[in-house]
């Protein structure tokens, strides 16, 4: 059985949209992080699919760069959340209201 690569691209777009929507509507910071990760992985899926379609190894290599960067980003992000959590004991975006204007 063979699957048309277009389906993978479609899945990637769907995942990306779910992630983007999640960042915009969810209020829990950790869930927002997960949604960002979902968006990055949707991009990774697109890279791999395009690499397959183009028969080019380059696209698959790019995925590693994105994975490494995503891991580094999460480390820093969780550090910031923990620092906030110590102060507030909640991790929702609604608590981020010290600055307005």
């Amino acid at each position: 059985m063979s699957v048309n690569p277009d389906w993978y691209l479609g899945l990637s777009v769907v995942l990306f949209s779910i992630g983007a929507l999640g960042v915009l509507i969810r209020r829990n910071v950790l869930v927002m992080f997960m949604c960002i990760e979902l968006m990055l992985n949707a991009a990774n899926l697109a890279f791999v699919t395009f690499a397959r379609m183009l028969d080019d190894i380059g696209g698959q290599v790019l995925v590693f760069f994105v994975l490494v960067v995503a891991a580094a980003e999460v480390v820093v992000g969780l550090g910031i959340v923990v620092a906030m959590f110590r102060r507030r004991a909640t991790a929702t975006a609604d608590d981020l209201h010290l600055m307005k204007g």
Partner: protein
Amino acid sequence: MSPLTVLASVAPAIRTPHVDYLSILPMLIMMGGALTLMVASSVLRKVLDRGAGTTVAVVTSAAALVAALFQWDHVSTHGPSVTIAGAIAYDGFAVFIQITVATAMLLTALVGDGYLRREGIAGPEFHVLAMMSASGAMLMGAANDLIVIFLGLEILSIALYVLAAFNHRRAESGEAALKYFILGGFSSAIFVSGIAFTYGATGSSNLPQIADYLSRNVVVSNGVLLAGLALLLVGFGFKIAAVPFHMWSPDVYQGSPSPITGFMAAIAKVGAFAALLRVFVSTFGTLRTDWQPIIWVLAVLSLVVGAVVALLQNDVKRMMAYSSINHAGFILLGVQAATARGVSAALYYLFAYTFLVIGSFAVITVMAHGGDEGHTIGDYRGLARQQPVLAFVFALLLLAQAGVPFTTGFLAKFGVVGAVVATHGYALAVIAMVTAAVAAFFYLRVVVTMYSPVGPSGDTTDPTDWSPTSGASETDPAHPTGGAAGVGYLARDRSHRDTGFSTDLAENEGPAALQVLSDAPPSESVAGRAVSVPPLTWVALGLCTVFTVVFGIVPGPVLDFAHQATLLFT
């Protein structure tokens, strides 16, 4: 023989790309300095004193600057080239960005030293992170491949997220970091998707190869390519804080430690604009009819929203955030023109803006009292009497940002507007000049406040303030200078966020200092509060002022420099 060695002997040798180390020398120096400082601080038993961190940062930035000047010499004689398998461009444009970023880092290290001492923050992490961030901006300037741009963007941003949270005694600092992180991560994910789609449409992530593909194939309404282009543009839009992707910037600018805000405003813009110019003007130049209208809209929105909303701000840091959005609109003019003249004008603007914004935030840094509070415009009243030189320098830097003649700010604005007029973008040029006039109002408002005497009976309300909540009465006169503020933060009532809480003042004033002081008399003015400027901050301010004035009166050298950098664009 182990299986691995057998395998290694059978497999063909891996050919590594040729690396021209001079082409990445400033970045290597910046990263090397950061790593050395970090390792030294972990290996040494005692905590490094602040002077050591500052010294290493200053020496490293100066070394990177010298290396970049050597690069300039090399590029001028040998012409532009690419290296490391085409991933890095070694051209005048890249070198110009290296020089700008190294200068920004040098100035920030000088300003940051006084800040760290005042806030009592020990350890060299401030400089380590700043240097890492600077190396990311340098990489963005030299990147010749979309994925390398992404790496540079992330090295720049991840370090900046941490720096935004650096003053852990201020709740605003952490909040700024979290907002910056979430929106930064969001924009990075959009940017990566843009790279994926561009790769899918053109078969490469390498910029010259993409340009080659586009020049050999007639791309008519290729949905995947246009989607990639749009996503890339959104990703860049977030980083340069162009309206409508600017939501994060006022909060992040306000919450971050002041020297970091100046640094962030300078190098994030320099890095992102460098990549934007290279990707759009150089690589996607053949598709300019597709992206120019979008840039036009972004530029107009940034110019108008930045200038108008800044008028309504009472917090100087927020005002500067909107002012920087306005500046982003001006630089977008150079992108919109998409000509060599536009690129050179944008480069000049970035270089001039680096000095202006870091200098301005240096003044804002020293004006804050302990805990990095007190940034309302009213807090600047009477500064001219107490610190005439500081007030004069700040007035000069603000007027330069407004575009007053005989400063670099004027030439920068003149350059981008001229570039747009040359491509017949008259409407855009008129809008830009109108917003420049509007922007002059809020810069002058700060200047007038500084030169207004403190009124009778300590009246320090902002003389130019027309909003109903005038005056800075919320500011706490017995301001905390940091200290064991953890208790205070936990006990803090949200509604009293501006009042601060004095935990370490308890020694001097007894338990009364712990009470919430929202009903305190109007904040003391500058006249009642000693504003002290550390010597290194004076050095940084001196450099910014001298650059702004000297090259405003004698514009030739820097304009030629930016022009040459554009000519040596691959």
